[in-house]
């Protein structure tokens, strides 16, 4: 895997769908879907990577967030809801 991570700010809609199908990590995961239809597996820094009730509450909302992008996950440390 790449040894370093990049800081990233993104805006998108929080959605859920299945991730890592058929693996030991298969789960309904939370994703951030951006306007260009890119999809990022979302995790809250310090949050449970498999089921985080705080992220679950954001599902369906559009948020602007700050975090770091690893090879597989967007780990967010700060976010705000985008209204309208």
């Amino acid at each position, binding site marked *: *895997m790449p*040894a*370093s*991570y990049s800081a990233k700010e993104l805006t998108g809609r929080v959605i*859920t*769908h*299945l*991730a*890592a*199908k*058929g*693996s*030991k*990590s*298969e*789960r*309904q995961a939370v*994703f951030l879907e951006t306007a260009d239809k890119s*999809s990022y*597996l979302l*995790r809250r*820094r*310090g949050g*449970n*990577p*498999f*089921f985080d009730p705080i992220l679950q509450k954001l599902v369906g909302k559009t948020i602007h967030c700050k975090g*770091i992008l*690893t*090879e*597989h*996950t967007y*780990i967010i440390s700060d976010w705000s809801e985008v209204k309208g």
Partner: protein
Amino acid sequence: MTDKVIVTNLTALKEKYKGNAFKAIQTAVNELIAADKVRRLTTILVPLDDPKVMKKLKATPVKNPSSCRQNKKAIDGIYQALVPDYMMILGAIDVIPHQDMKNPLFSDDPEGDNEKFAWGDLPYACDAPYSQEILDFSGPSRVVGRLPDLTGQTDPDYLVGLLKTASTWKSSPKSEYQSYLGISAEKWKESTAESITNIFSSSDDLQTSPKEGYKWKSDFINRRMHFINCHGGDTYPDFLGQSSTDDEDMPVSHQAAFLGKKGRVVEGTVVAAECCFGGQLYDPTAADKGQMGMCNTYLGMKAYGFLGSTTTAYGPFSGNDQADLICQFFLRRVLDGASLGRAALEARQRFVERTSPLSPMNQKTLAQFNLYGDPSVVPVSTATSTLVVAPKVKSLGLAAKSLSKSKAEAKAVEIAGAAERADRRETLRAKGDLLSRLQPDMNKTETITSAQAKSSLKKIMSQLNLRPLKESFSFNVQSQSTAPLMAKNPLAKGISKAIAAKKQSTTAFHVMFGRPAGTETKAIAKGPGSKSMTLAATGTKSAAKSAAKAAKQSPIRKFVVLEAKEVDGKIVSVKEAHSK
């Protein structure tokens, strides 16, 4: 003669550790080399970025530290020049990268396996040149391990500590390694119990999460063998359990911060972790509270070795396959008295042997599991029948352990030990070569090629009460005759020919994803954990019936991977891999 080579990239190390920090690491490496000498191992450090040193070895130096191709070529050159019994990679992935093997299960489907690469050190353990195809590395033959520092970090204390552990290790009697800490997600306890029984002959002490964990009492955490079958996450330090009745009940089962406190891990602990990302070497600054990963934490607490995965791992609910197998093979070899490096090599070879021809899931498993720790460490001391011919006749095992100051005895032990090791290495090399040549070539096609296979899989899906998803693909297998690899006398030739005529060959693997019919909503499991099985293509009715019943009882099994094995154009068995 060089017994052990430590390879590192000095340019990359100096980038991380400036001035005195770098000197502290140099001193610790020199101490390890001196300690190895006392153990009768001749160890040298080879900086694979140093053109002068590499020229002497007729090897190509690394110019770009992050280049997988260059690092593979450099290590191959060093190996060819020195043919060491042990090769230790010094540093994390920002010093010498994991190799970028393509994940055969990769899918663009956001619900599938989105990992392009199954990162790992497997290619460094193989003679095949740089490649991104896992099947090119199906014949591992070298004893390799990695002593990692912390990715992205600049404080030398961590790596100096690991080098010190590698300098001062001691073997212990087998009895010290026969009790274990075994942790399983409750949902997978059946499979974990089988693995643990295979290693330790009993699974009575298996702990399941929930309800147990993560504050393990010293009676458990102080045991020297740890086997963990839990969830793990990308850039996440802890492992998680999972309830067998509620999928969303996923408490922390094993916490890196808890382990990282004094007295929690006993020096000499050996770990095999099946968990996804259990062996990922991430930069701790990316994690909450800067917590380093589980693998780094264990090694920092003086564990001798850790076998873990860089990426998402696979395995069944019950029975053993994929990650279960490679982890248990490793611990079994450690218990039998192998060095960590040999245990890892033999585990890889056994895995290929057991699962050949390698299906896509097993290819990924082979690639993603790595040994972290000094490969020359021998945790378990075992009696040996070999007697050393020295002034006093002694058992090789005991003489090697006593580190005698008598020069004559030391020399005799060195010669006898090296001779035994050389014989083992020769056998392992031959076995690796044979395994590699036995492995058929495979070509992936983005859809299931055979109409009959597709129809059969759909039928099985239906029998299992599953609805096939769009995503499916095939691996066409070009099986070859093993006759040319066999003995050449006329009788053996004749037998090989007869076997070849009789043998049915695997012609393809077909992979189909599906979900239980009528379970479209969010997963909330209320039923019992469901089974995983290999189904014979015939006689599946009762199994299918119980699977369908289980699927209805347990809506958590929404998605399943079916991996069908086709022999001579007919599907003969199907492996059903669930989210564990």
